[in-house]
């Protein structure tokens, strides 16, 4: 083990970002019938890679504390509608549901990786 802070790798950040994205998608679905509502999303890869952040805090010194949440500066983007609706609502319920399910599956994937890591560490600690 290299250091004890980075045990879980990227998955802690990925989980909190996935949870945030689930919230944004749930907001879109809740407003599926709201006139004039513009659907939003966040670009997961861009935010995780740090491209989407504007002046976010970074760990530049070994003495800095890196919070799982503090590293992100979520820039929400408006979705480009496939077909504009008369009341200016840009929520496509099917697309949002697909995105929500996809997001939930990837959240589970991260959880599975974390569970495996924890199990591996525990068995190493116990020496069984």
């Amino acid at each position, binding site marked *: 083990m290299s250091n004890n802070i980075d045990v879980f790798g990227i998955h802690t950040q990925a989980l909190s970002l996935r949870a945030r994205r689930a919230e944004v998608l*749930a*907001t879109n679905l809740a407003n599926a019938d709201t006139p004039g509502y513009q659907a939003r999303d966040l670009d997961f890869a861009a935010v995780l890679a740090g491209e989407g952040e504007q002046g976010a805090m970074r760990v530049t010194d070994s003495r800095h504390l890196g919070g799982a949440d503090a590293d992100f500066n979520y*820039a929400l983007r408006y979705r480009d509608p496939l077909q504009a609706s008369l009341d200016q609502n840009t929520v496509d319920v099917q697309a949002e549901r697909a995105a929500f399910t996809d997001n939930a599956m990837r959240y589970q994937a991260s959880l599975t990786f974390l569970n495996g890591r924890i199990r591996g560490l525990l068995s190493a600690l116990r020496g069984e």
Partner: protein
Amino acid sequence: MSLFNIFNISGSALNAQTLRLNTTASNMANANSASSSSGKTYRAREPVFEPMLSDALDPNGAADAGVKVMGIVESQAPLRHEYQPGSPLADADGYVYLPNVNVVEEMANMISASRSYQTNVEVMEASKRMLQQTLALGQ
């Protein structure tokens, strides 16, 4: 934790869709309530939704959270004016006023509202599962 917020967001949508179903039920129930004057006649009602703004949700900028009912508007469509001389509500010329409820429109509205309700319940279910799995992490 933002997953808990989903319950508020989808809950507000359930509320709004229930109100929409309520107005539809009210419109359908009153579709044939005759009246003797245009002022007393029932008019079809419809809720208008609005995004619920919450600055607390996103520290970096206002993100909408949930939906709320801005108000209920009455339809401006013309009332039906029917010749029913036998009705006790008929005016001097034998006409009664009937509500401007379009039953076909109301049925379509009802199906749309119940589908939206269903979608939001499923979103809550999925978030509940995600939370439960997170709580069971490392067990």
